[in-house]
């Protein structure tokens, strides 16, 4: 299966083609840009994670063990802002998507390589504004920036933070645009839409949401700025505005943004499950079109964040119905992934453990969403820790698991090195256990009625809070382990061949790490994706 390395060492590839800071900061190679993103979002992940650790430590005591309430409010705000806008939204698209989209379709680069580099600089500028806000005293509005608190009452660094989010939104738009054009125009001969790996379908659907949704967030932030800086009455009733208008606009972006975070993860899992069971995906077109269905429906469910705001109960009814509908394509995906294992040849290397963890945690995250789509139970659970648990099952239990699974899967391709699989499996297990111990108690806390964003709380909630904090410390260690062995592997890991997993897909048919131009010659695709059952001779014809 694995291609024989014909060239004599040292082979020239994208990592050693050029040296020096300039060769990285001015690169237009999508693979190098992916690594720039990887470094930046990893930094942001650990900053956001540090805030989470401080929060969990603080909540060990009902009176708050560590900081003043004002500081705690800043911790959860900055944790949310950094994790959502500067880690989760760019994570899989900007790192794995950037690296893989051209490789998977047999192209030399993205359609607009310089715009690709620009999008990273835009991200860095946005992140700089937000980090400035963090360092100069922080912000305490919650990542949701609800008005009129954010526009009139908060006296923290709202504008610097919001400006960072505003700017980094353009990075999403540019990346999404680049992916859409690339997937439309640059597929290798024979790479028809229905031969594309499902990761590309997911990235395509995500890109659609990015370019349609992100401008609305930008508009909302501009309006917030107009009210905060110039006192134009838009959201604050004292100035003649409507406080709920902000929530409508914010969730019109931010609910689809949840799918920006989870859809690419679903794409990654489709790649992992097929590779590690050596099977074609079960029900290719159902998995592909469910991504599109999720992307479309995601724009029609924002009102389920507002069931207790006093929104009309008839509007609530419609949003509830649509929210139930969006659960169905998600369920279809879970069943198809599971069925893919049937009669497969299943191995349990680290990426597969992450994928299986994803399926389980996503199932729980998705099903607990039903409690919140249901009007009557949402009234009780809205604004409590149940919400916190639910969206962490989706965004951390699912999206971060998929991201780590993807990083582990494509790491040999990215770095040309193998990491110690034993450590990787151990880390996956630690993360799975730590995650559940952190967030499962929060479902119970929410049902008991503990509101979120409380710097101190009544004593009856302490036991579950202590359990959650204990889990968070395990989870934190779990995230540090891969950081250590992945960095270690870059220098000391065994050299990887071009296809260590025996995977299908064009990215595995070029060397590890790939040459700057990806392929020696343009590949020709003659078979569908995941052709694990077909003969080797046929599949390597593409080279």
């Amino acid at each position, binding site marked *: 299966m694995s291609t024989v390395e014909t060239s004599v060492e040292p082979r020239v590839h994208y990592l050693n083609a050029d040296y020096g800071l300039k060769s990285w900061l001015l690169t237009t190679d999508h693979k190098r840009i992916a690594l720039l993103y990887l470094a930046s979002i990893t930094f942001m992940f650990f900053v956001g994670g540090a805030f989470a650790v401080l929060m969990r430590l603080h909540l060990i005591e009902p009176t708050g063990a560590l900081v003043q309430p004002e500081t705690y409010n800043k911790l959860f705000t900055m944790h949310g802002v950094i994790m959502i806008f500067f880690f989760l939204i760019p994570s899989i698209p900007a790192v794995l998507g950037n690296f893989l989209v051209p490789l998977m379709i047999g192209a030399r680069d993205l359609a607009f390589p310089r715009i690709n580099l620009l999008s990273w600089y835009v991200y860095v500028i946005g992140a700089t504004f937000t980090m400035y806000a963090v360092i100069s005293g922080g912000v305490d509005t919650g990542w949701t920036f609800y008005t009129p608190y954010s526009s009139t009452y908060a006296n923290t660094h709202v504008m610097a933070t919001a400006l960072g989010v505003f700017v980094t939104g353009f990075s999403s738009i540019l990346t999404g645009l680049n992916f859409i054009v690339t997937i439309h125009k640059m597929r290798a001969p024979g790479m028809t839409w229905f031969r594309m790996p499902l990761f590309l379908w997911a990235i395509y659907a995500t890109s659609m949401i990015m370019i349609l949704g992100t401008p609305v967030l930008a508009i909302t932030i501009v309006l917030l700025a107009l009210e905060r800086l110039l006192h134009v009455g838009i959201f604050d009733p004292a100035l003649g505005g409507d406080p709920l208008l902000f929530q409508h606009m914010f969730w019109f972006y931010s609910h689809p943004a949840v799918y920006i975070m989870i859809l690419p993860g679903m794409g990654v899992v489709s790649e992992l499950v097929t590779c590690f069971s050596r099977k074609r995906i079960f029900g290719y077109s159902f998995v592909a079109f469910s991504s599109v269905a999720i992307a479309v429906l995601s724009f029609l469910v924002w009102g389920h964040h507002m069931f207790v705001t006093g929104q009309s109960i008839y509007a609530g009814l419609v949003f509830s119905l649509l929210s139930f509908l969006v659960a169905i394509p998600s*369920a279809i995906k*879970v069943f198809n992934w599971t069925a893919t*294992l049937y009669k497969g040849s299943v191995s349990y290397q680290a990426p597969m453990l992450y994928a299986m963890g994803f399926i389980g945690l996503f199932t729980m995250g998705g099903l607990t969403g039903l409690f919140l789509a249901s009007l009557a139970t949402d*009234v009780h659970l809205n604004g409590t820790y149940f919400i916190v648990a639910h969206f962490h099952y989706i965004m951390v239990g699912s999206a971060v698991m998929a991201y780590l699974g993807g990083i582990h899967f494509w790491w040999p391709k990215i770095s040309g090195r193998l990491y110690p699989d034993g450590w990787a499996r151990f880390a996956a297990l630690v993360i799975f256990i730590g995650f559940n111990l952190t967030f499962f108690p929060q479902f119970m806390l929410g049902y008991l009625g503990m509101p979120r964003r409380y710097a101190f709380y009544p*004593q*009856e909630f302490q036991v579950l809070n202590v359990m959650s904090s204990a889990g968070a410390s395990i989870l934190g260690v779990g995230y540090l382990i891969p950081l250590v062995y992945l960095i270690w592997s870059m220098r000391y890991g065994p050299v990887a061949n071009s296809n260590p997993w025996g995977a299908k897909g064009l990215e595995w048919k070029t060397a590890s790490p790939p040459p700057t131009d990806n392929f020696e010659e343009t590949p020709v695709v003659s078979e569908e994706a995941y052709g694990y059952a077909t003969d080797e001779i046929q599949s390597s014809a593409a080279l």
Partner: protein
Amino acid sequence: MPWWFGFSIHPERASTIAAGVDHLHYFLTAITLMFTAIIFSIIFYFAVKYRRRSEEEKPPKIEGSLGLEILWTLIPTLLAAVAFVWSSSLYFLNSRPPVAALEIFVIGKQWMWQLQHPEGPREINELHVPVGRPIRLTMISQDVIHDFYVPAFRVKKDVLPGRYSSLWFQATKTGRFHFFCAQYCGAQHAGMIGWVYVMTPLDYEQWLSGGVKGESMAQAGARLFGQLGCITCHIPDGTGRGPALVALWGKPVQLQDGRTVIADEAYIRESILNPAAKIVKGYAPIMPTFQGQVSEEQILQLLAFIKSLGGEERKPAKP
């Protein structure tokens, strides 16, 4: 007191709607556990049964199965439909306060709750109510968005600046239950909590008549009505420069532009703060705004006064 004091996995259930909400919650929990168990066991079973035994294994090509796709689309759809109909009908039921609800007014502000009984008593972060009687809270915020949440009653509603919202409940047992602010509202958000004291009707009557005997909200409103000079134009016999407010409450009002509105809390509040917005037919737009001159509490008192002048019985309010 040991640190695990009060640990429980089930919240107290102390209102007429709580059991209904819980039953739906159990149903959804059962679905969640069932599907999670099914998915976990199938994955586990397949992962063991089909584990890779040799590198040479060549699994069969399986494209998919339309029958299975239909099956696993239909089953979740069906369950979702059941949950949707169940939860929505329960929500509709829970959104409609009974006709004879006792009305209490709530003002949220950074970072305290002020609760005002029509008879006069005013409470801070405490709410005394009788058991077995429907209570309707009419709520407004003085600054940012707050949210009034009583877990034991399974009720919650945002408390917005600039507009009234309402919720209702009927307590089923006496005792002391937490209420929380459930919408983040700034530095002391976590401190914006209090207790609902549910009392027997007899105790409640005693509590109402005990303590400092103040004026009722309607009396306070009447006093304000004179102090603010409202009375010079809104003369009860209808001869003034403004419309008479006698027997106005809850009735339709003809406007200058041909529209008809119901004289409810929102309309009267708007007419005090922004009188030019809706001009009553036959009157000139001469009333000055009272924006900035009356507090939310005073507006509620004026509302209580106008209500006391008679009008329609409150219909089963549209939620």
